[in-house]
């Protein structure tokens, strides 16, 4: 008993304070991937049932809804093209650098951390697909998190709602900068150190500010849901609701930031 406890304690110490176990991690992850896959089967089968057994009326309604949406989006796209062209012209006039387009890689969620106090997920892309540590991860609606560990064909993503996570943001309306921190709750984030005179109000959209160098600029992070002055506290208590559907999204996008790609290309050119 004592011996086993000592071994476990030693393992804990080694894991926390040294990097000796790092080479072991990727192949442990290889080992765990099949079990994770099996454990997600019930959910997959449920989804398969939802996908294959749909009534005709539902399908028709879905198609007509999507058609309308496509119509609206196409209309907006026309404006977008014009705006993008205008933006490029204006930037040229200002002699500013061109805004670069980020490219993305679609990935699927294959595992969720079983520890409720830790918000990490596992996605099915890894070293083989050029995923790197620190890469930003999005879903269809907003920023989800960042890659923290990369294995051969999967990687671990730390979500923005984890209590150890913080990211630099700015208010879309006026560019006020702040830092959004996770609280260990999928539906809430908090802003730290917002002074009472800051121009921020309920309903404000927050986007990533690109400062800090981890996340690319301009992806939606959340919407302000409450701004409270707590007596005795010098800062405002601001809470956001994340834009991304952090506990629900299955398909995620890994962002290859245009700036990083440019850096890689020039490195390769040398």
């Amino acid at each position: 008993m004592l011996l086993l406890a000592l071994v476990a304690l030693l393992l804990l110490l080694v894991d926390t304070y040294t990097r000796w176990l790092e080479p072991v991690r990727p192949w442990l992850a290889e080992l765990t991937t099949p079990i994770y896959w099996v454990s997600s089967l019930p959910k997959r089968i449920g989804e398969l049932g939802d996908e294959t057994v749909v009534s005709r009326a539902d399908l028709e309604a879905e198609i007509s809804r999507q058609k309308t949406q496509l119509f609206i989006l196409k209309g907006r796209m026309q404006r977008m093209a014009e705006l993008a062209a205008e933006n490029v012209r204006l930037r040229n006039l200002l002699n500013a650098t061109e805004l670069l387009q980020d490219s993305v890689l679609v990935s699927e969620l294959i595992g969720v951390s079983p520890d409720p106090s830790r918000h990490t997920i596992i996605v099915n892309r890894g070293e083989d697909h050029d995923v790197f540590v620190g890469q930003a991860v999005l879903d269809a609606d907003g920023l989800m998190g960042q890659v923290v560990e990369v294995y051969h064909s999967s990687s671990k993503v730390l979500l923005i709602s984890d209590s150890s996570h913080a990211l630099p943001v700015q208010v879309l309306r006026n560019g006020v900068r702040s830092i959004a921190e996770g609280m260990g709750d999928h539906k809430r984030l908090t802003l730290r150190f917002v002074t009472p005179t800051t121009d921020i109000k309920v309903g404000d959209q927050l986007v990533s500010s690109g400062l800090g160098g981890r996340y690319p600029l301009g992806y939606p992070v959340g919407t302000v849901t409450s701004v409270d002055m707590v007596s005795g506290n010098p800062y405002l208590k601001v809470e956001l609701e994340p834009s991304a559907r952090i506990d629900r999204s299955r398909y995620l996008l890994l962002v290859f930031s245009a700036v990083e790609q440019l850096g890689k290309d020039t490195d390769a050119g040398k």
Partner: protein
Amino acid sequence: MQESSLLTYLWSGGSVVIGLLLQLIPLSSTAVLWRPQFVLLIVFYWLFRSPFLHGVMFAWFSGLLLDIFVGELLGRHAIVFALCAYLIRLVQQRLHHFGVLHQAMLVLFMVLVSQLLLHSITLIFRVGWEGSLSIAPAITSAIIWPFLVFFANRLLKTQGLGQSISSGS
């Protein structure tokens, strides 16, 4: 005798893997707080059922397996499960007289102890961590214990594995 103990080990190993699967199935963010400690329950079942074959070592390896899959601090569940198994060992003689509800009470207490220990270890080793301790897993674990005992006894009886543990009250 040799063969039957090997068979028992196969069953216990297999059941730990099933417990692992149950522990890893993705659930919604509220349901996850109420998830019973399946792996620990299965370890307890084997400790109660065949204490000569399953002891602290079995619990330790099950915990380590769980650690590998959870992918956080290695050795965290191993040390806690081993400690729980040791505590169970201390009351081993009395276990024979426990009915299933009595066992469930013991399980409630032991899962609570394991939560407490896991929490403390995380507090020590993960700097700046602020989580809250929940008694929900202990309650759900105690609730499913009688069902687990009933079904496991039934299943293993059909497989011709010896003595089962008390499932009466």
